[in-house]
């Protein structure tokens, strides 16, 4: 058993988790709930083992390094963090329905990592610029933030759906949307998740700046990736202020949670593929 196999298995287990949570949500079969949680927990442990094993393998190949330094590894870690944060929310707020809105993100991330072309799964050694503990800190903290924002977007989505139903303020198991938590609760969890993400994104941007400074002597150079992370940070700062000082809540915050996550995706994915594509297209 090697790490690629373990991580490969994870993709399918998260798909199965997604199905279980969705079935639990739609058919309200009470027994499916604990099963979904148990299954997700096992998938999570398999993934943890896979990531750990990959680390060990890199040492066996004589280039020991944390498994966090290319697209494949970071997306895998992203999925891992989403599940981690989701499981904490499930445990803290005692609600399983959120799983149907959060776990799919982890599955999609894993599917992307596993099947997208142009993503290498090989363990390659680190070029000199990437050999830095600040880089590891940077990747870990950014992805905790991104994962929290993914969960917040899932919650925002859930809020908007629930908002269309008559059972807005209550839980009423007899209808599909009725079984979702009351709007106030969703709103509160969304906000808390975004606050958590904002803290980690801030730390992520800071550790990235420290890394840049130790490698090149400039902590900020307005390159597209840096700038986009700052744009994302501004969007969430706006969201926090609108809520705290102007009393925004509900639908607006739900939309901002989704909008913010789109900016996250662009920061991570778009900058690499769309903007650099734009540049190389232009210079051809």
């Amino acid at each position, binding site marked *: 058993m090697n790490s690629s196999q373990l991580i490969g298995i994870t993709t399918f287990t998260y798909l199965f988790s997604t199905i279980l949570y969705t079935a639990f949500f739609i058919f309200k079969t009470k027994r499916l709930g604990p099963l979904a949680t148990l299954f997700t927990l096992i998938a999570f442990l398999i993934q943890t083992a896979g990531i750990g094993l990959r680390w060990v393998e890199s040492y066996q190949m004589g280039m020991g390094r944390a498994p966090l330094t290319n697209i494949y590894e970071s997306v895998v870690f992203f999925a891992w963090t989403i599940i981690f944060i989701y499981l904490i929310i499930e445990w803290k707020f005692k609600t399983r329905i959120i799983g149907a809105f959060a776990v799919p993100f982890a599955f999609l991330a894993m599917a992307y990592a596993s099947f997208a072309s142009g993503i290498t799964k090989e363990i390659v050694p680190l070029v000199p610029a990437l050999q830095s503990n600040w880089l590891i800190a940077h990747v870990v903290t950014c992805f905790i933030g991104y994962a929290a924002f993914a969960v917040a977007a899932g919650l925002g989505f859930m809020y908007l759906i629930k908002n269309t139903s008559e059972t807005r303020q209550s839980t009423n198991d007899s209808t599909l949307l009725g079984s979702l938590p009351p709007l106030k609760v969703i709103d509160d969890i969304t906000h808390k998740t975004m606050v958590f993400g904002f803290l980690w994104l801030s730390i992520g941007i800071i550790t990235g700046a420290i890394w840049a400074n130790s490698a090149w002597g400039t902590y900020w150079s307005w390159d597209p990736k840096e700038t986009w992370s700052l744009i994302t940070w501004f969007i969430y700062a706006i969201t926090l202020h609108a809520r705290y000082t102007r009393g925004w809540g509900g639908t607006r915050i739900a939309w901002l949670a989704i909008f913010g996550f789109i900016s996250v995706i662009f920061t991570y994915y778009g900058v690499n593929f769309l903007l650099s594509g734009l540049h190389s297209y*232009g210079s051809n």
Partner: protein
Amino acid sequence: MKNRNPIWDFFTSVKLALFTLFFLATTSVIGTIIPQKESAQWYIDKYGETTANLFQILSITPDMYTSGWFLSLLGLLCINLITCSVDRFPGVWRQIKADNLDIPLARLEKMDPQFCWQLPTPPASTASTLKNDLRVRGWKAEERTLANGLLLFAQKGAMTRTGVYIVHASILLIFAGAIIGSSFGFKASVMLPETRTTDTVYTFDTHSSINLGFEIRCDRFNIEFYDNGMPKAYRSQLSILEKGKVVIEKAIVVNDPLSYKGITFYQSSYEPYQEFLVTITDKKTGLNETAIIPYKQQQNFTENGLRLGIINAEAQGQSVSRMKIWLTDDKGEPSLFWLTDGEQVTVERATTKYAVSAKQMYATGLQVAKDPGVWVVYSGCALMILGLIVAFFMSHQRIWLYIREETGGTSSILMTGNANKNKAGFEKIFQTLTETINKV
């Protein structure tokens, strides 16, 4: 006493903050789509003359992020932050320092959550029992005697009300650090061949020369490779010299620079030469000599008519891995041998032995930065994280216990309290307190 004039109101408003942040976010996008810091010709070739001109007029190119209008937006954010804090902080400070025992009882009676119970002891001794109870649970209570009873007050985390202001101040500190860095620092670079010394570097933006005030020498540069041929490390052995004397020696790699007198040298690039650095030591006399030898040229050493040439080389890309050396001192046939880059061999000749080492010659590309503001920026960053944790996860919790004297010398107690954030969390704490506090 507040000065409510419209201009002040404008600059202190959160609406302005939302507006500024929104504009910063949206305009920042432009500079990520239109490449920055290219030449004027580059923009004309790419976008055409008219569009390129328009970009220039709008200061979108060549460097939007240092243009007047973008810096003004950042400046506006700072002014907004300062005025907003100046406006609100005194009020927050008054809340922190407030005399909480001086509170109308009517307000206590309306507060939520509440808990009431009776104790058979008179108010004074009830107060001391309860105070003790609270102390055990980490609440230090103050006490004041009222007309018909006693009031106890205890609080936690009053200072956490400053969290938001710590975050806001940290942003100003980061800006201050950036301004210090760009006013009193520089970013420069230099290409320094092995064995050479320089005291001059060249700035990025204007290519003007800067005198370091000391000298730096590159003693050696080498590249290490992984087994699969990928570069593993670029390493420059550097020496800093003051008046010709070495004061510091350090091998730098990417991510591990050398700092001296506030100036930092970063490994950033390199340039291979078609020349070789050859060192020969006569093992008998101990005489030692180093020379720079171009490829396929014969070099005369001073000793014994010694001559040496590099007649062949194997390379990975532009980096030579092995070279073939021709050596003679006219005592017998010339020696011909292969030598791995950077290693040493012993060559036996008729009358003596020579230790010969050779390596391809490189220039190391150093990035040179002076940034006296960087520690201000870092302090700002640390402060921001601290402030965020305080603002997000800590709250100011207050509890009051009003002990009223009842007929017959017993006490009835009203406990209430509040927190400025995380009400649910506070209610739990309050609940536990009501369960454990002395009720007999």
